[in-house]
């Protein structure tokens, strides 16, 4: 296993990752930083990179950051495990879940 420095950090805020950024698509325009009602994000210190998720505990999953993103594919939702939906195939009766 590769050696990685271990810091003394508090627990990661839960839920900690309301969205996932895709740096290969995102060009760091920060539009999501602007449309977010509660300032979940701050701009990345490195220009052109995806924003930093600073206040994930304040996210209310309104969706504006993803819906209004000018480069679709840059951000995807990441529902907390306990909030993922269940459904059932009418023909087979098999119960399914959002397991992305």
């Amino acid at each position, binding site marked *: 296993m590769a050696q990685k420095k271990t*810091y003394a950090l508090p627990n990661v805020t839960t839920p900690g990752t309301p969205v996932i950024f895709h740096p290969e698509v995102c060009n760091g325009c920060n539009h999501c930083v602007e449309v*977010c*009602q509660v300032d979940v994000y701050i701009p990345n210190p490195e220009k052109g990179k995806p924003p930093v998720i600073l206040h994930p505990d304040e996210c209310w*999953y*309104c969706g504006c950051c993803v819906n209004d993103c000018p480069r679709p594919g840059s951000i995807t939702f990441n529902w907390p495990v306990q*909030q993922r*939906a269940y*459904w059932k195939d*009418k023909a087979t009766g098999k119960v399914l879940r959002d397991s992305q």
Partner: protein
Amino acid sequence: MTRWHDFIEKDGKPPAWPYPINYDREQEIETDVLVIGGGIAGCWAAISAARKGVRVALVEKGDSIRSGAGGPGCDHWCNAPANPLSNVDPDEWAEHMAEPPYSNGIGIQIQCREDWDTLVEMEQIGGKIRDTKDEFTGAKGRDEKSKLMISPRYTKVHSYIPGSQKPITFKSNPEGKLNNVVIRVWGSTFKPALKKECKRLGVKIYDRVMVTSLLTEKGVQGARVIGATGLNNRTGEFMIFKSKAAVLATAGDWSLYVLNTELAGYNTFRSRNQTGDGVAMAWRAGAALTVMERTGIMMLGTGYKHTWYGGAGDASYENVPIVDANGKRLPWPTQGWEDAGAMRPTPEDMEKIIKGVQSGEYTLPFYGDFPAMAEVERRVTWNMMLGEESTTKNIIDSYGKGGFDPARHLLQNYNFIEGTSPSQWRSAGGGPVVDWDLKSTLDGLYVAGEQSYSAGDHSYAASTGRYAGRKAAEFSRQAGDAKVLKDQVTLEKARVYAPIKRSDGIDWKELHAGIARAMQYFCSEYKTESLLKMGLDALKEIEEVFVPRLYAIDPHKLMRSLEDLSLLNHGQIILNASLARKASSRMLNFFRIDFPKVDPPDWNKFVTVKLENGKVKAGELPLDYCGNMKANYEAHNKDYASVYKGK
């Protein structure tokens, strides 16, 4: 590198605060009309005031492009009886709506008369209100000619629960045609269009600024409102707004009773920002408030329940039949054409369902049978409504990516299996007393949207905002200049910055939970004089002992800390209002053990509370203080110009 701890692990240090820190800077802005809150009501107030030709400043805690409960979207334009497809008279519909005690007859009358005009103006500025691309041809309620789409909601009775209101025959609709008062809209297009129009009209927009207090003439409590103070929640800069009239269009208080500040955000309809700052600052300025004693458990989100709208049978799942795990149809309303949009089973049906679950007649969990629906209705419900309602587009998108196909799959319903809601999430339904100009009891202060008492929804916020904006503009034309008292600003500055001057103590989350706990203990289902007084003592202790320990590490957390102080005030107001009402009331969801008689005639009145020289003063108003709604509306709006025709 998008999470905070990524930076620690890579660089060994957190990222620097990305905005300039300007705690010591101060900015002064002079305007005619100051709009506090840039949600739906606030944007409409700013637009209508600017169209009257006065200078307007709009101040918003988030960014007015998407802020507010209606910022992400809206799928139902409710109670629009003046629309061309309606079969009822707006005044008669308003009267019917205002029938339940403690309604806001003034706001309702404005909504019923003007929200169709407001919607037409919404279309003028770029909002989508018709099926112009013919995507839903053949859907029930869609009018071929106008391409407007009527929703089944309120088509027969104005109620979410069938049987809860007796069916009435409207004089204006003697044949009992469908009322057609609710219009489906593409509300995700609204908020950006509103901001664009504000900019086009020259409204000065101050985003990311939290208004912290109202300034009054000579700094006197109860005197004319002549401005406000604010805090930039990114830079920490202090703002002083001087105005001739102000419109309070802030949000309601949605988190006072919520203990947990982490889970509360899960898709609740209301964001963390909504902390009732407006009511708190109006209270401190001396405005009379009413209906503050009404609180009630909301069966929504909070992380303790499933994602609101995430399960079949939730609000707005129109025309979806609910079946049990074996596909057996339940007597659960479809919220559709067959049951006039009813959302909840009647009490009798609910009992049948519960008994059926216990006896094994119905097997859990229940499901929404989307595949059984007509294809076009399924698209209207799943794609259009969920695509446009406040926070739900992410549901169709995420579920779709996860493989959900409404043509093949039954969507799970979470009733019963997730248990009873913890008594954590409450709405408080009160706000400033208003007159027919939507003016509060303070000169120069107007009130709109959710901040008004017994407020309605999106179209209510839009139409009352638009109305308050034009009334405030008229007032500002004749109002004289007033001098801001320096001491009032100095005192407020000291209050605002106290938490960043400390380096240790308790953070906003701990204080928030402390306030919530006090409210849960002393102002919940079981109310008595002594418990309510203990509640006031508990909040006083928090104010005197723990507030002086509150500390914040950046402008964002400083804003959250100040919101706690709003919530603390809010709790004090609710407790004082609860002490003033010495009777129980079903309509107010207000039950006192020491005054068990429910709605005794003597107490069928509004209770009001206000601060006078720092002392709480209770008062009352007759339930029908708004008088004849139609006559008063007309008397106060002789020059109303209907839909805007200017450029």
